[in-house]
């Protein structure tokens, strides 16, 4: 009996070792075999945060700040970390409906259960304070800082473009972006997105059971600091831009000024405009709609780049250059003008009469002279076997000036303008057409349409005597003295340099004794050409194109004021004011600014 009892010692030992073994097997299973616990642990305690870099700043050509960043607070959500929470409380804080709340949660879930997505964008500082305080009640939510674009001066809205949430299409194609990331949608923001966006950083932080951050994981071993975006230096001259916008003073129209030697845009105005700060942040959608609905002013429409106008008399300069190049005329070729270009039933009226050579024809903007040389170009059958070939040769020169096509530089929303093909005329005129059929194109009316940027660039070509560099708005990247190499190539046009002198001489005469003589600037030799762009919908548009100084051109300009009548009266004074402002020194600038302010007050 005693022996039998003694054996129980072993039974007990067996039970003890057996149960310990069961525990060990279980531990072996959960600690070594089953990896799901490690994953759970990471989801529990680690939060992968994206550190958004500050977007690059944009300065003007004189180091004035044009675009900077402001801090905003986004409420982020990680669906996987969601627990039951007081939805009403959150709705109250954010002032949203419960339906919206549920919808947003669904959207976030659909994107990713683990990656944080934006739940509420750009909370106000008060909301942020509230949420931060109560965050422990809302597991799965946290606040992330990010920056928003801000503009110290409400000018040049159209060229900056805007930054917005990345679209699904980009998300699908570019792994760099995550839902809720911001991306340049248009303008400079889009063209220089890779430079401006910087490099995203990441931070892995520990989060405790109450959803509070508790320092970095592994002493920040996995963290990467974000690299701020590259700063850009725009070619825009902020003071000139402001001055130009004020000159237009809310009238519909456009001003483009280019430095001819570099293709750098000095100012680019599309009026009416808007404050770029309106299209930032939470209110963007609402403000965008309001601007869009303003059909009368159409402030969102970028007239400088997208609006097509008949170029009017300024186009005559192009036809003159082509006629010179093709040997149709020489500078001394003269024609008598009998108050118009009259062929059979066709009459193109002219306010002028008398015999003019090329220089005088430009000076007085003789319609007869330019109709005639345009007709002679197209009907020269010794040179061109057919009207089509003659027209195509003309069109090639025109396209070479940049008309009828996009520059595709860093500018948003360009349109091509219209330079019809010979096929187009073959079609509508059933192949029976000649120079007189399309004669209005000779004086910049009819089927042709150009954009202000194209016209300004054309002035740069004349100023450069035969070449241009694509117009662009960013001159330096990263450092002020680190030039933007994207746009340095000189594009030589098909017109030989020797032909420009006569045209420029005529343009100078325009300023001295011609249609823009009242707008000449004391002490500056300037070339210009006025124009009237016919407008079938109302009063004609006033046009002026020019550059200065003639010998060493610093600025080429195009001005168009919608429904303002003749170019000489309205557009030319604006252009010469800008040129004068740009070329004169500091003291004169202030004087001009004051003068403009005074006149605007009246």
């Amino acid at each position: 009996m005693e022996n039998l009892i003694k054996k129980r010692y072993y039974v007990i030992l067996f039970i003890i070792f057996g149960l310990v073994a069961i525990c060990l097997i279980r531990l072996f299973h959960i600690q070594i075999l089953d990896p799901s616990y490690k994953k759970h642990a990471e989801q529990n305690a680690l939060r992968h945060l994206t550190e958004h870099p500050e977007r690059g700043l944009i300065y003007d050509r004189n180091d004035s700040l044009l675009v900077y960043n402001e801090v905003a607070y986004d409420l982020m959500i990680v669906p996987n970390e969601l627990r039951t929470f007081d939805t009403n409380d959150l709705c109250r804080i954010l002032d949203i409906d419960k339906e919206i709340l549920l919808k947003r949660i669904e959207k976030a879930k659909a994107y990713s259960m683990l990656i944080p997505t934006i739940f509420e964008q750009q909370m106000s500082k008060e909301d942020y304070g509230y949420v931060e305080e109560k965050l422990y009640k809302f597991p799965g939510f946290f606040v992330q800082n990010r920056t928003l674009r801000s503009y110290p001066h409400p000018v040049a809205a159209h060229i900056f473009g805007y930054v917005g949430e990345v679209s699904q299409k980009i998300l699908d194609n570019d792994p760099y972006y995550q839902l809720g990331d911001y991306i340049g949608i248009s303008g400079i923001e889009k063209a220089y997105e890779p430079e401006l966006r910087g490099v995203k950083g990441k931070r892995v932080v520990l989060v405790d059971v109450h959803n509070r951050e508790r320092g970095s994981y592994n002493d920040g071993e996995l963290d990467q600091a974000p690299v701020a975006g590259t700063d850009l230096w725009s070619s825009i001259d902020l003071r000139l831009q402001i001055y130009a916008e004020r000159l237009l003073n809310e009238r519909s129209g456009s001003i483009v000024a280019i430095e001819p030697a570099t293709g750098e845009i000095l100012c680019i105005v599309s009026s009416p405009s808007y404050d770029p700060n309106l299209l930032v942040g939470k209110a963007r959608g609402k403000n965008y709609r309001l601007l869009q609905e303003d059909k009368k002013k159409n402030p969102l429409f970028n007239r400088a780049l997208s609006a097509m106008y008949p170029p009017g008399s300024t186009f005559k300069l192009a036809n003159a250059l082509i006629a010179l190049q093709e040997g149709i005329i020489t500078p001394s070729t003269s024609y008598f003008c009998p108050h118009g270009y009259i062929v059979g039933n066709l009459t193109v009226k002219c306010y002028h009469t008398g015999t003019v050579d090329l220089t005088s024809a430009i000076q007085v903007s003789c319609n007869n002279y330019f109709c005639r040389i345009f007709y002679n170009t197209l009907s020269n059958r010794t040179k061109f076997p057919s009207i089509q070939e003659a027209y195509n040769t003309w069109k090639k020169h025109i396209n070479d000036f940049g008309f009828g096509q996009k520059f595709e530089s860093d500018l948003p929303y360009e349109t091509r303008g219209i330079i019809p093909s010979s096929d187009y005329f073959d079609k509508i005129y059933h192949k029976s057409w000649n120079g007189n059929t399309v004669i209005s194109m000779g004086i910049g009316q009819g089927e042709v349409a150009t954009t202000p940027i194209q016209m300004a660039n054309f002035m740069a070509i004349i100023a450069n005597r035969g070449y241009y560099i694509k117009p662009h708005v960013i001159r330096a990247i990263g450092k002020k003295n680190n030039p933007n190499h994207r746009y340095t190539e000189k594009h030589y046009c098909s017109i030989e340099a020797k032909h420009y002198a006569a045209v420029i001489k005529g343009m100078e005469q325009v300023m001295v004794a011609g249609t823009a003589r009242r707008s000449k600037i004391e002490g500056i030799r300037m070339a210009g050409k006025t124009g009237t762009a016919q407008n079938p919908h109302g009063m004609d548009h006033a046009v002026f194109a020019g550059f200065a100084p003639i010998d060493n051109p610093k600025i080429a300009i195009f001005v168009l004021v919608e429904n303002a009548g003749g170019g000489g009266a309205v557009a030319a004074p604006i252009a010469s004011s800008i040129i004068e402002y740009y070329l004169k020194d500091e003291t004169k600038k202030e004087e001009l600014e004051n003068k403009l302010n005074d006149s605007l007050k009246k």
Partner: protein
Amino acid sequence: MRRDTKFNISKGIDTQLVIIYLVLVIIGWFAIYSSSYNPEIHSTNIFDLSKNYGKQLIWIASAFVLAIVVLSFESRHYMHFAYHIYIFFLLIMLIVVFVGTEISGAKAWIKIGNYSIQPTEFAKFATALALAKFFNEGKTQSQKRYMWLTAFGMIFIPIIIIIFQKDAGSALVFLSFIILFYREGLSGNIFLIAVTAFILFLLTFMLNELYAIAISTSIFLIFWIINRKKKKKLIRNAIIYGCALLFIFSIDIIYDKTLQPHQKMRIDTILGKTSDPQGADFNLNQSKIAIGSGGLWGKGYLNGTQTKLNFVPEQSTDFIFCSIGEEFGFLGSLVILSLFTALIYRILFLSEQHRNPFVRYYGYGVASIIFFHFIINIGMTIGLVPIIGIPLPFLSYGGSSLWGFTILLFIFIRLNNS
């Protein structure tokens, strides 16, 4: 005791037990430090008394003093005063039922200043001593008849008092003395019944009473078929079966009447009755995640994320094992399990070797209590048994439990040295 030699308490004591004890206590302190360690505030003051690790230093120091005090009494004093001690602590526990302080649902604490003491922890060694004395007493034939009844009575008195304290976990601990009873001749059948009852109890909680009924019914049917020729055995089988069913239903009643809501929640989760991730199985999930994420080598000391960030509740007390499992991985777990197994084995080995049966009785009591605590505590952290809030001996934070286990163990060391 020879009066002519210099009294030396360290002479002849079992160094293996003392070493295992010291190692466990020290590991425990480091684990408590780790689970209270805040990565943001790199406070290096280990004596910070506002922190658990600072307070635990005091408990450890005083436990060492206590151990020396325990060793300095003579063995015969423990034998002599066993009943006195037992009754003394029963009375204290009874007082606690009426005037005690409630901490996390259990009214089992006496508050003295800023510190709370849980008399239940001391009742364990007291009961072990009393049982040892009881078995050691010579018994007349009539006394022997009622021996087991008395023995069970001696463990059920504290159990009932503790149930009144609403501390079901601690009450269960006293059932572990059945191991001692079994060693001392309790009918194998009764031992089997007790173990079966315990398993049924867990099954009822872990699965569903229907499973428990189904399992006991099928066992009954098997026996019925085997013994269908023996009428006497059939009747006994039927009685046992009836008892099992009664037991299962009474568990249900106990479950409904005596368990605290939070305990019910925890148990319900194990049953799969609730799947609220934030609710009851949060504790269990989090403790499994903490241990499971440790891997083979662990995340390294002070690098545990789950325990550090409070995902594991009561991480320095009942769930201290999570900290070790997470930071030292499977190897750390293996070390802890090995130390406990070695400790228990050593106690049982010494008990069997000792000439004085009193020492054996007491030794088995000690081993039973420590084993039960250890296996249930670790079992609950890895989801093998329901969450029963009992500490891991020597490692868990808390003065009462450290003192209680220190006294429990060192009385054995003292007795073993006689």
